[in-house]
């Protein structure tokens, strides 16, 4: 038997080659994935593109019609009026104070007897 194959250097090399081999699997995955993983248009992404287009259109239309300066000016004058006002006692609405009369259903007449009484 040849015993020269077993020495500390050989064992050291074998250990690190084995470690490298195991880590190579992971390194290979990390390298190969970007190469094989192209752009994929999923159903979600396709739908989201259409939704984003509609959302942008709505936001743009809102921005065009909304006069922020005028609203701010109006809000300021309204706040000033409210701040200067005196608190007053609230009044209960008339309709709510008196309950509405209950309508009684009309009394219907008894239906005419159409079949003879079997006990007679």
């Amino acid at each position, binding site marked *: 038997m040849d015993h020269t*194959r*077993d020495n500390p250097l050989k*064992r050291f090399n074998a250990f690190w080659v*084995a470690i490298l081999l*195991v880590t190579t*699997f992971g390194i290979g*995955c990390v390298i190969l994935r970007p190469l094989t993983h192209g752009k994929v248009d999923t159903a979600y992404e396709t739908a989201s593109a259409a939704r984003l287009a509609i959302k942008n259109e709505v936001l743009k239309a809102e921005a065009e019609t909304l006069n922020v300066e005028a609203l701010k000016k109006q809000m300021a004058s309204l706040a000033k009026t409210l701040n200067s006002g005196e608190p007053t006692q609230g009044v209960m609405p008339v309709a709510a104070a008196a309950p509405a009369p209950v309508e009684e259903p009309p009394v219907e007449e008894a239906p005419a007897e159409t079949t003879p009484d079997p006990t007679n």
Partner: protein
Amino acid sequence: MSETNPTTDINDIELRSSIDRSLRHPVMFFFTSGALWLAVAIVFGLIASAKKHAPQFLDCCSWFEAGKIDAAHMSALIYGWGCSAAFGIIIWLMSRLSRKECTSAGIILVAGHIWHFAVLAGILCILTGNGSGIALMEFPSFVWPVLLFAYVLITIWSLVQFQVRDAGHVYVSQWYLLAGLLWFPWMMVTAYLFVFTFDGNPLMAAGIAAWFKNGLFLLFFLPTALASAYYLAPKVTGRPVYSYNLALFGFWSLAFLGPWAGMERLMGAPIPQFLPYVGAAAMVLILVPALAVGVNILKTIVGHSDVVEQSPSLRFTVSGIVLFMVFGVLSFALHTVTSMKMTQFSYTGYGLDILAIYGVFSLCAFGAIYFIVPRITRREWLSRRFINWHFFLSVHGVASIVICAIVGGVIQGQGIEDLTQPFGTMAERASSYGWGVTLGWGLILIANFFFCLHLLLMWARLGRRSSHPTLLQKHHSENPHGPEGEIDNIGSATA
């Protein structure tokens, strides 16, 4: 108790004895801890099976909900029992075949503890509802790197031993061991990165998890079981392997087909359609290596039926190899397009999984354990009755599970396909077969009570201090393990 012939050189016997002594603690640790995990997995399997036909069973505790207990059962069976037994077999076989003592027993022991703590943490996370939720890879993401780290620390010494072995013949067992040692980290690293690290389509993550699960059996457990069978069959019978070319063909056909299997579990899902079909084709063709290996091992032992009857190691191993051939035939029949329509969403897949993990791998592993443990403890098994009970209950249990799950699964699948029947009819049909599966796990639980007790007694060095190996028949004219007296002649087993 020599394994070769009466003229074995005393130096060779001493070398083997010193190898056994150097590996005593890590190997016994893996076998005993694996046996305890197996008991846990069987109890979980019993509960999971009972819940299939009696859903209210143990519904008081959220830990035992059907989804959690099913996942915990398979995880304990695969990573607790299967991997532990495989590690014990791999490190012992590679040392023996490379003729090198183990110089890193302490590191292997520490790594073994890390492995088991990681499995325990994973199973507790599953039971408390903190699993990953990814079918077939249910451990949370933090567990996988720990398992990989522990795996490297356990097995790297076997790769070093192979590299520095004395020049000469590379045994068939060593091909399988070396391949399994390298395939496992390849699959685990790839599956972990693509399922838990890289962002991708969740459907493909499910497919990769399915590929990983199949790969674990075909490319790790199966090579370990076959390495053990190719070691034990010639060793116990004293004959060379029947055909070297057939062994080579069986190995390369498994190496070619194994990595393609797995995606057939996602048949009909919106993934590239060739993937499930390629997976199904690979599973159909697994019959080829099954027949090659089966014929080779059976031809090696042909004419030695008395040895198979007497030797516990060979009896378990031959049963495992026969069940591997059955697995090949069933895999061929159940992965055609027409049959997959019936079986995909039924119990059938579970039956095939149990046939693979328990029927094929575990029986071969039991055979290896019955061979290895007396050599590393320098004690003989205490009771042939325990071994007999373990064997017969195991075989009957696994047969009950596989037959009920596969037949019940096909009938269940027919019920799903029959749209004229209400859905409940299918469930009623399946539940009666569920009782058979529960009964099977009950038998296996009793079988492993004998095995676990026996193994723990051996671990405590309470085995028979005798030169006569424990054989399964009381009256035998010739010892199938060779001449007796080796144990006492070589000295104590203190490491």
